[in-house]
């Protein structure tokens, strides 16, 4: 298996249904003989999973026979949920987590303020009801918000657009 294929199969420690490739944080894999340089980018500045991800990548590549593994970080361009792949979105939904919509784009001017909780249509991943409500803008991790479905009465998480 190529180094790129090995790296792409490593999963995210917080969202284990997603591979690093699904999540869009794997930015490059350069292989030369038994040496590999993997480049990743953090989702959020304070993401505590970055070290585990680096360790998991190193271990997976060493097991695949690569003696020298270096994991580099790039900060730019900043990660966006738009980089979560179509396959990744299907896996999130299958795990009961609502996938993100399109990330907000701003042509110019100040960042717009949102004074009421999001009214965007977020469908319930359990029962499909399209009309759900936000409970909290932050959930178990910074990258997810917490919602509730008034039909099946189940709470669920949504990956926030950034």
């Amino acid at each position, binding site marked *: 298996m190529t180094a790129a294929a090995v790296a792409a199969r490593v999963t995210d420690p917080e969202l284990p249904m997603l591979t690093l490739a699904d999540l869009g944080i794997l930015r490059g894999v350069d292989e030369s003989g038994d040496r590999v340089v993997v480049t990743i980018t953090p989702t*959020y500045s*304070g993401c505590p999973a970055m070290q585990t991800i680096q360790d998991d990548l190193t271990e997976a590549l060493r097991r695949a026979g690569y003696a020298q593994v270096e994991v580099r970080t790039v*900060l730019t361009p900043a990660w966006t949920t738009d980089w979560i792949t179509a396959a990744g979105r299907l896996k999130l939904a299958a795990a009961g987590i609502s996938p993100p919509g399109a990330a907000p784009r701003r042509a110019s001017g*100040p*960042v717009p*303020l949102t004074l009421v909780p999001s009214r965007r249509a977020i469908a319930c991943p359990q029962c499909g009801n399209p009309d759900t409500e936000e409970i*909290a*803008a932050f959930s178990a991790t910074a990258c997810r918000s917490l919602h509730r479905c008034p039909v099946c009465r189940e709470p669920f998480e949504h990956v*926030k657009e*950034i």
Partner: protein
Amino acid sequence: MSFDAAYEALTDHDDDARWAYGTGFADPLAGVDTAVPQDVDRGDLSAYCVALGDDALIMSHRLQQWVTRAPELEDELALANIALDLLGQARLLLTRAAEVEDAGRDEDALAYLRDATGFRNVRLVERADADFAHLVARLLVFSAWRLALLDRLTTSTDPVLAAIAAKGVKEVTYHRDYAAQWVVRLGDGTDLSHDRMQAAVDAVTPLVGELFVPDRVELRLAPAAVAVDPSTVRSEFDAVWAQVLQAATLQPLAAVAEESAPGGTGRDGVHTPALTEILAELQGVARSLPGSVW
């Protein structure tokens, strides 16, 4: 997995893994191209990164103190997540500062081994919050100000600062919305919540002026577009503050002179006694057990 194995899994034997950030945390800028642009004074750039990093570090610590004390579990999670984002920004900025300074210090040395007079954060971030209304008022002021600064810093001529800012903008947008929505909910709520939210707005107002007073480092770096002169974001801040207060049916406290910064600002190392209290908690273990691991 036995208990011993579970404990073993939590620890590692990396010599660089001090207890401070848990175990095994590496340089958050590992592998990032960290060259300093030509014609930029290293001392000034380092000092600027320290100031922005100290703002985030101390604000994060104050937010962490709300964990187990927030009114709802959801808000506790929100505050912890906001604190984590800011701690991440602080780590990146202090690491950048240490690299540019090139004097053998690292992020831990900057966070844990400086005295209060060495910190460059604005005094707004030091204040202990009397209640949740005071917290959301202070968080709104802080995040509206920081968002305006970071948004401009995305075009900084220091590429590392620009990259840190670009990530921070996305995060602080959510922080500002969270705080603003609570200010509106409490201000436009019951008579009791309105009055307590108004009291919180009144109490934070004297701390606002300092945010827009440029210090010498900012004035030297701003012309080359490395840093932002904070006085240039005042109108953007005022528009956001007015929009939120109006939606919340609250009055700005026009009568209070915000701050003329007699004797200097937090950026000059002039702080309130609250910072010393925070540092006693934040630095206590690192100073009494230097280099410890767990």
